[in-house]
């Protein structure tokens, strides 16, 4: 691009600025509301600036008895989901990655197709089953439900990770007298670790964000998203904004840190570990 300020160039930057602004505006509004007094929000013509700053909404939300139960639940469930997703999906992904080409393509496509099932069609019978099994409101029940969405996704990412690990390395290890399990543990696993970590973080984020299974499977307890929905339903303007910010911060930080791994390739299961 030339360095002169041609009309085309000005238009380009104006458009870029507009898109950039629109991309962050909703977040800025949430943050603004969470820090504003009612005079800045609950009026007919809300101002675009904080004229009456206050930290009272944050003080109310950050009280241990308010924030801790949903935060604990969200943390436990998201971490449990991430760990179990990797433990169940990684071994299978390794085998799928070593299948002949045609088979591998078919299996990866089948994993992708599970995405076509609407979650509500799965959640309805699951909720009935879990109710009978006493899994409602339990951490493990919600973890099991979050695995439904994440196992195919994690397996899909990890097939891409294992695919690029050269077979020769494994064969050399076999020749050295290591068994297959030993080879998997000492040769394949260390090389796949970065990809596994990325997949685990994706699963963690997905579980942290989930509202659908939480709303079906939790009656007395709440996760952070459920808490946010609960306040939105009651019309508690400031609590919604504050909880939304709490919910967003870890997601935003992890997503921006993982930026280099989030490419279209991720969606095609080709994370470069």
């Amino acid at each position, binding site marked *: 691009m030339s360095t002169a300020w041609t009309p085309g160039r000005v238009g380009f930057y104006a458009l870029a600025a507009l*898109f950039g602004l629109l*991309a962050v505006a909703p977040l800025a509004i949430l943050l603004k509301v969470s820090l504003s007094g009612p005079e800045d929000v609950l009026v007919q013509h809300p101002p675009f600036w904080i004229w009456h700053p206050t930290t009272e909404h944050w003080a109310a939300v950050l009280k241990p008895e308010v924030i801790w139960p949903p935060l604990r639940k969200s943390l436990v469930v998201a971490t449990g989901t991430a760990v179990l997703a990797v433990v169940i999906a990684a071994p299978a992904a390794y085998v799928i990655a070593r299948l002949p080409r045609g088979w591998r393509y078919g299996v990866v496509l089948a994993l992708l197709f599970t*995405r076509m099932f609407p979650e509500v069609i799965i959640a309805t019978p699951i909720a009935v089953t879990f109710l009978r099994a006493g899994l409602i409101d339990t951490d493990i029940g919600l973890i099991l439900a979050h695995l439904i969405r994440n196992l195919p996704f994690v397996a899909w990412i990890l097939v891409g990770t294992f695919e690029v690990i050269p077979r020769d390395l494994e064969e050399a290890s076999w020749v050295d007298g290591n068994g297959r399990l030993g080879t998997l543990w000492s040769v394949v696993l260390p090389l796949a670790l970065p990809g596994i970590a990325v997949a685990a973080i994706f699963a963690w984020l997905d579980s942290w964000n989930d*509202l659908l299974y939480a709303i079906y499977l939790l009656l007395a307890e709440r996760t952070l998203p459920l808490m946010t929905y609960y306040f939105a339903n009651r019309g508690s303007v400031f609590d919604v904004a504050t909880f939304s910010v709490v919910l967003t911060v870890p997601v935003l930080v992890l997503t921006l840190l993982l930026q280099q791994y989030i*490419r*279209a390739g991720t969606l095609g299961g080709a994370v470069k570990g």
Partner: protein
Amino acid sequence: MEVSRPPVAPGPGPAALPRVPPPLAAPRPALPERLRRGWRRHWLDVALVVPLAAYILGFTLLPVLQSIALGFTARFGGAFPTLANYEDLFARPDFGLAVLNTVGITLIGVALELVVGLAIALMLARAFPLRGLFRTLVLVPMGVPTLVAGAAMLYIVGVNGYLNELLFRLGLIDAPIYWPQSGPKGMFVIALADMWKTTPIVVLILLAGLEAIPRDVYEAASVDGASAWRQFRDHTLPLLMPAITMAVILRAIDAFRIFDIALVLAGRSVPVMSTFVYFEYFFGNLNTAAGAATVLLLMIVVFVAGYFWLVERRREAV
């Protein structure tokens, strides 16, 4: 215990060894024997795959089949099969609205995402100062939970929201508009929130597609003196079709299943398929919930099959 041996690649051995036909006296081993050998060679692979396969069968495929069966089961008395639930559903105005809203939101949302996503991807495909900052900014919505995208929209499209305020200050409206209501306004607002959240994914898919187009295609076109618009129409767009198809399919499937945003933004006033199913379940109508969920599955399958059918037919026509 026998030490498992590494698997041997199937098929003919190294080319150096001529294949000797097996002597007639040693026929192929019987089936049980072959199974036993196959098991000895592959038991580890099978053991590694079984947990995932069992989970998907038990926690995905089985519930889907259960839902389909529930939809054909009478709510009282349990007669099976029956169409009573579907007769119920199709007689209800809110179910019709849910179907209409879901289709409308998907069409509006995916169309907007494609246009804006393509514009941003084309911008990112060029080199310019501050490109890194621009990329980070437009990817921000990806780091925001879907529910929060809906919640943020509450402040924007509420009666005292910032959209009305902006329109008022620009002199475009006098009285505030109530946006999240049933009808085109509600569809538009939900599609807008969904678009804000998911456009970054479309950008990434299309950008990967753009980067895969070989440079010499453009160089040849520039030598021919083609204008920027003709280059885009005749070269970029056709070569980008696979990426566009992937974006449309992925996004449409998710848009049909939209739940969080519709629920937090409009609750029951703008029903979509997923929230309709949830409220049916919530009020204890398990069978109509399952029936409506089955209709949603059918909508998604029909859309995906229809899209591929259309794309294939056009490709043949060219």
